């Protein structure tokens, strides 16, 4: 057990747990976007920032990746933390104003104005889908490509990946679009169900125990109607 101070309260938590896990366990809410139970933390969105240390040495860290340390002083809602979070949300909102999840988070944090140019990106590079594919679906069909402003997520060579089982897990976890629909470009699409009109699960019989997140699955619905 490790003892530390969260928001002035002496608490002890399991060794090896992150600050986020500790704070949540004790009931201190911390908003997150790129964190999900069952996936390894990645620290991409910075929404989960908390302040650690004291005085001039105090600094902001992402709680989802920071391990609990003996005697650490953590503040999960200091004014500095709230200011940083609001700025992050405002920027996220500018890059992805159409996302319901980001809109809700922004509203919950009292963001009432939009100072930055809206970009309507369809990806915030949070990496949830990449981790979902690798860690839960054992797929490794998609990953990061390029770097800097050209960084993007997708399949190698932008063509349908051989290891993709069309489980739809990536779209299920995506906070930016919630079911990214690429319509009728089945070559590039991850789903492509509307163009294929055959249920992905039938085609791939060898994975008959696979989990499918395509709900509702266009192809399945059509087949049921017949």
């Amino acid at each position, binding site marked *: 057990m490790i003892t530390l101070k969260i928001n002035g309260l002496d608490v002890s938590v399991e060794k090896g747990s992150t600050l986020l896990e500790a704070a949540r366990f004790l009931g201190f809410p911390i908003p997150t976007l790129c964190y999900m139970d069952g996936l390894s933390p990645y620290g991409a969105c910075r929404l989960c920032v908390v302040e650690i240390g004291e005085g001039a040495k105090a600094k902001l860290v992402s709680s989802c990746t920071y391990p609990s340390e003996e005697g650490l002083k953590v503040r999960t809602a200091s004014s500095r933390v709230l200011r940083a979070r609001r700025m992050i949300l405002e920027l996220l909102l500018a890059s992805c104003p159409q996302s319901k999840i980001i809109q809700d988070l922004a509203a919950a944090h009292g963001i009432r104005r939009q100072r930055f140019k809206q970009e309507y990106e369809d990806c915030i590079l949070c990496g949830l889908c990449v981790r979902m594919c690798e860690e839960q679906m054992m797929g*490794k069909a998609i*990953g*990061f*490509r390029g770097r800097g402003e050209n960084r993007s997520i997708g*399949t*190698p*060579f932008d063509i349908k*990946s*051989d*290891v993709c089982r069309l489980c739809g897990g990536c779209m299920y976890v995506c906070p930016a679009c919630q079911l990214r629909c690429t319509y009728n470009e089945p070559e590039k699409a991850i789903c492509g169900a509307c163009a294929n009109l055959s249920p992905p699960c039938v085609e791939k019989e060898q994975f008959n125990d696979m989990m499918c997140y395509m709900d509702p699955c266009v192809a399945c619905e059509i087949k049921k109607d017949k």
Partner: protein
Amino acid sequence: MAANTGTQSAEDIDSKDILRILEKHTEDRGGLIAILEEIQAEYGYLPEKSLRIISDKTGRPLVDVYSIATFYRSFSLKPRGKHLIYACLGTACHVRGAPRVVEELKHQLGIEAGETTPDKEFTLETVNCLGACALGPVVVIDGHYFSKVRKSRISQLLEQARNGFGTLEIGKDKRIFPLNVNCPHCNHSLNDDTYDIDGHPSIRVTISSGRKQGWLRLSCLYGSYNFASEFDVSIDSVVSFLCPHCGVLFPSTSDCSVCAAPMVRMLVDGGGILQICSRRGCKNHILDLV
């Protein structure tokens, strides 16, 4: 730059070649970049098929291989032209007018940066600093540095590149002439009046090989290969070159096209860059005068 750069098309890719490269890097996981580098040196780019073979043979997921291949600027997934042009757009070159030079290059080649001309002759890339800021704007064509490049010089440079730089005429008829060479770091002269070779002050540098360090004096006559050194260096070994004044290692930005050892770069007094191969016994060198 090797002569076979980018001349092979997708069909010629022999999986055997790639397997041969892979065989050399079996021990460690970290070998991926080395593998990619070798394939790029072989074909001038990374063919899609080669990435698939790497993923197959090394057991790494294709996404990982692909994400590394797209992360680094030095890898290209598209076939590149016979001649590779790097135009510097770094800060120093920028303020000295590099954007105009790049515009002119784009205009004359009819392509954008990062593209290859339809006849597969030239590929234009922009880079952010080549470490020769004092000579900016710098353009590198097939490993040859050109400094203080102006718009008006571009067509001549492209013409030279087409004909190959091997036939580059160095100062009229005089095939042999003395050079004054400076350290690229501290700009001290490397010519040493106290020791003559071929009747001219020698060029003194410090070399180190293994634990040993000592001086090496080269003839300053361009075209002469005479030298003297403090200790014997066995033939074919590669040594590091250091400045005897500031002690800094001479930079190397390209590899010898003959033996693949790093080329050592020095400045020529009056403007220009001299590169010599760091392998004992290899006579490869490149001289680019302004």
